[in-house]
């Protein structure tokens, strides 16, 4: 059976995923765009550094499946229903038994004279975003036409590009569909406070030449009220219109205002053709969200799978067995617009006859909440939340599942004065409650996965796909996870170990407040027993982060892992490696010679590391002080390769030499490395500074990555190479040197305070509720009022830094430990080397055998 899927957008691709592996089904996919499906919902992340590849929805090898033919740049222009062929723009004809139309929609551009001027753009595809980026680079002012969901998201993109940003809206308020008057007013105030200018009630009549020479006023927008606005670029985001031109050409029935008519099975007026996603019109409604589209894709896939494999033409009614029907969709949404929480649930406008409202508004904190309840105040019909949408998940569940309201419904939106729990425990939800609407994951699905061993948020997301699309359901998913774990008696996973019934984060605070200075004091105050090799190094790291005492102090000796105890990395044969710090990878010829000489003198193996420095291997414990004596004398410092602390700050050569460099990346890398050297943290920290967007220092794979821009620096955080690579995310753009340092200070200290044991920043941020957005609130907007404290903590760290090796070689008491035997001056005879490529390497067990047992 031959299926032709027209459109490879989000919904079309979901259908393909659902149908993968169906026997005797051949699918031809016609994709008008130059690339297969990508994540439009997260399109804006393109501006924070995501590439088209990052946004791709296509899993590796997907289109290599034998029964799948993908045609890119292939626009369908007609359907020859008599011949059962789809006609492409290049004249090619593709035969079909069935068709699924998934052509999506196009951005609506109001009929304004001058709308085709250069720099008038829309916001829908990767190409659109590339154009926006290019225009943004040569503009000072940007206008978004349309103050709805997408328009505000677009405004944020312009703002992030550093433009003076304006939003022009025809209606008297923002987000007319989702938010009521009061919510809209608050939203506007908040957005304006961020420097985006909002113009409501403006009807744009025409766009003419602004007379502005160069940047600052290429266009003038003329409004019906006689006013005008100068701008350099304009993005239209005034709604979407279904792409139904194919349906029109093929004579399928359409709605009055467009949209391909479908029934509850998503069939069009031709029983051999389905339509799904944003091009489809169901009971007079177009659904502009991805979740309803996914529902349609799933139920069409179910019908396709039931079709007999060989189909004669005209076998229209295939005697369908029971398949699910489409019965509308919930249009509730939660988003973060320009960092402001906004959510709308169900009947937000109170359109239900007799419905009643509960309101809470706090102008000081900038919070507005409204509940719409049934006339008997028993059930929740809808809600609007602005400024604080933390209750979105539970209110949505309450509305969707018809869970009875509590006796005092207002308690659901009033701030809890005593910090007591309120709202709805996830325990009350039925197993059928849909938790993640994007991916159709119910509470029951989550529970089953947790039972099956997915006991971390990461594992649960991977296994159920919940919270992997819009992310709105993440807090709820986490609540279900926590509740289930608690119920099943799984020891709460974040306990450090059997000796400390606290997470690292909790213990950090206890120690900071309690003032414990040693492991023994800590375990007596906050733990039990004697400790182990898990909690000892963790507590050592907490003590070092809090009090920055020299790790070599005898009172800390017994809790250091061997690497920290000997300030070197242990190797497989019990020898150690030596890594001097080479800040930013910059090193003088003289210092290179010293490293070479030391290696020669002590017979060490040398290797250039992946972190732009030189590692010397094969040192025995008793040699370490003399090796470091020579290195310290030549001006080297400990490289902390052994510590859970800053490793290296990788740099590229930058503007000093490189013809493309726009900032001096080496100087900045050295400044950063010298500032954070020795800082103890939950896990190691890596950083990099690139001198321009070519990114030769690979900063986007680091915990802290800095990339030079024309105007300053872009700061990326929480990247990772290693076992599970992760691209860093943009925290702030075009900031100056001092802001950069300040933000890194805050970011690192916040991580150190809240990270779990051995949790890199990447896993930390992925497990942090609210992710990057939350980090931004804390370290940029200072939502917790912590920033001053975080900076002070870092200042103290920087002040009290000392080179551990310099200290060690001048402290006789410490030197005593660098001996192999306590009762003999001999070396460990089991450390043996042979030559390979002109240097030493450890002997293998076989090579050693005769020497050990003669």
């Amino acid at each position, binding site marked *: 059976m031959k299926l032709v899927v027209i459109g490879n957008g989000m919904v079309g691709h979901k259908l393909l995923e659902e149908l993968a592996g169906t026997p005797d089904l051949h699918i031809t996919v016609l994709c008008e765009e130059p690339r297969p499906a990508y994540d439009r919902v997260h399109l804006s992340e393109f501006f924070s550094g995501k590439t088209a590849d990052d946004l791709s929805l296509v899993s590796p090898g997907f289109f290599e499946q034998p029964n799948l033919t993908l045609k890119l740049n292939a626009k369908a222009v007609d359907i020859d229903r008599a011949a059962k062929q789809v006609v492409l723009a290049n004249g090619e004809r593709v035969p079909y038994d069935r068709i699924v139309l998934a052509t999506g929609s196009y951005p609506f551009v109001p009929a304004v004279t001058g709308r085709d001027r250069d720099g008038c753009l829309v916001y829908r595809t990767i190409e659109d975003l590339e154009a926006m980026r290019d225009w943004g680079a040569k503009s000072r002012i940007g206008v978004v036409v349309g103050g709805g969901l997408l328009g505000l998201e677009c405004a944020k993109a312009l703002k992030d590009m550093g433009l003076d940003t304006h939003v022009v809206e025809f209606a008297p308020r923002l987000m007319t569909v989702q938010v009521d008057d009061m919510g809209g007013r608050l939203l506007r105030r908040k957005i304006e406070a961020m420097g985006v200018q909002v113009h409501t009630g403006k009807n744009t009549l025409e766009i003419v030449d602004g007379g502005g020479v160069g940047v600052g006023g290429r266009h003038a927008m003329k409004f019906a009220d006689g006013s005008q606005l100068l701008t350099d670029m304009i993005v239209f985001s005034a709604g979407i219109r279904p792409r139904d031109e194919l349906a029109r050409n093929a004579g399928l029935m359409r709605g009055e205002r467009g949209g391909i008519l479908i029934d509850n099975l998503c069939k069009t007026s031709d029983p051999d053709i389905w339509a799904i996603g944003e091009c489809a019109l169901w009971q007079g409604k177009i659904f502009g969200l991805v979740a309803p589209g996914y529902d349609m894709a799933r139920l069409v896939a179910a019908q396709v799978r039931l079709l007999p494999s060989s189909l004669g033409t005209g076998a229209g009614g295939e005697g369908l067995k029971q398949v699910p029907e489409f019965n509308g969709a919930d249009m509730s949404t939660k988003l973060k617009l320009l960092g402001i929480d906004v959510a709308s649930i169900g009947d937000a406008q109170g359109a239900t006859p007799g419905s009643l409202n509960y309101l809470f508004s706090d102008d000081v904190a900038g919070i507005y909440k409204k509940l719409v309840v049934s006339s008997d105040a028993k059930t929740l019909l809808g809600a609007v939340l602005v400024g604080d949408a933390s209750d979105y998940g539970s209110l949505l569940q309450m509305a969707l599942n018809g869970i009875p309201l509590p006796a005092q419904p207002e308690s659901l939106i009033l701030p809890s004065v005593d910090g007591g729990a309120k709202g709805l425990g996830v325990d009350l939800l039925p197993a059928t409650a849909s938790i993640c609407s994007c991916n159709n994951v119910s509470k029951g699905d989550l529970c089953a996965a947790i039972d099956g061993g997915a006991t971390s948020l990461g594992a649960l997301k991977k296994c159920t796909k919940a919270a992997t699309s819009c992310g709105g359901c993440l807090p709820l998913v986490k609540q279900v996870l926590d509740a289930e774990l608690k119920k099943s008696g799984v020891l709460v996973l974040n306990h450090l170990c*059997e*000796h400390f019934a606290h997470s690292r984060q909790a213990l950090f605070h206890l120690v900071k407040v309690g003032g414990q200075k040693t*492991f*023994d004091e800590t*375990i*007596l105050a906050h733990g039990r*027993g*004697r*400790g*182990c*090799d*898990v909690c*000892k*190094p963790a507590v050592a790291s907490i003590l070092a982060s809090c009090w920055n005492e020299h790790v070599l102090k*005898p009172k800390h*000796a*017994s*809790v250091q*892992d*061997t*690497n920290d*105890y*000997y300030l070197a990395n*242990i190797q*497989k*044969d*019990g020898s150690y490696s030596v890594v001097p710090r080479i800040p930013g990878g910059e090193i003088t010829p003289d210092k290179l010679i010293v490293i070479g000489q030391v290696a020669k003198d002590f017979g060490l193996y040398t290797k250039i590391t992946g972190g732009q420095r030189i590692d010397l291997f094969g040192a025995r414990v008793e040699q370490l002080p003399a090796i470091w004596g020579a290195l310290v004398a030549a001006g080297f410092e400990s490289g902390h390769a052994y510590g859970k602390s800053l490793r290296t700050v990788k740099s590229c050569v930058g503007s000093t030499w490189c013809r493309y460099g726009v900032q001096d990346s080496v100087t900045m890398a050295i400044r950063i490395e010298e500032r954070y050297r020795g800082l103890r943290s939950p896990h190691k920290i890596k950083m990099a500074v690139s001198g321009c967007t070519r990114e030769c220092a690979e900063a986007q794979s680091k915990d802290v990555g800095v990339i030079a821009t024309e105007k300053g620096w872009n700061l990326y955080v929480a990247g990772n190479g290693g076992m599970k690579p992760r691209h860093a995310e943009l925290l702030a753009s075009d900031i100056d040197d001092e802001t950069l340092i300040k933000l890194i200070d805050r970011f690192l200290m916040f991580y150190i305070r809240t990270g779990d044991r051995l949790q890199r920043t990447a896993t930390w941020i992925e497990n942090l509720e609210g992710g990057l957005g939350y980090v931004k609130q804390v370290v940029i907007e200072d939502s917790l009022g912590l920033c001053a404290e975080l900076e002070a903590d870092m200042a103290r760290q920087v002040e009290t830094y000392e080179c551990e090796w310099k200290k060690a070689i001048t402290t006789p008491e410490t030197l005593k*430990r660098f001996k*192999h*035997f*306590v*009762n*003999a001056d*001999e070396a*460990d005879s*089991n450390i043996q080397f042979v030559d390979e490529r002109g240097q030493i390497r450890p002997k293998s*067990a076989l090579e050693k055998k005769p020497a050990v047992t003669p």
Partner: protein
Amino acid sequence: MTEAAHWTFICHRDDIVPNTGVAAKVGSAQVAVFRVVAPDGTEDGIFALDNFDVRSQANVLSRGLIGELSTETGPVLVVASPIYKNHLCLRSGRCLEDDAWSVKAWAVTCGDDGLIMVRAS
């Protein structure tokens, strides 16, 4: 030979930082000697195991972290090998993860004078 001739002097108790180990030569063998002290400061005793870690084939056990782990038979004092973190019971040398990695426990004494002796055998 008398019994005493089998005992080798290692060091004074104060030469070992509380809750760490040292390596000692006993004849041609390497022995790891540990001093364990409870968090409240009570001396718990001196223990001796092979210094050779069977799992990593390296002489490193004296450099492991000392700890206490719950087992079916109650809490056990252990040292964690610094290389692959296998845990060895300080009293018996038994490896908690795999018997094949167990090591020998040596007889050790520490008198009131603080002198630590290991019995060579």
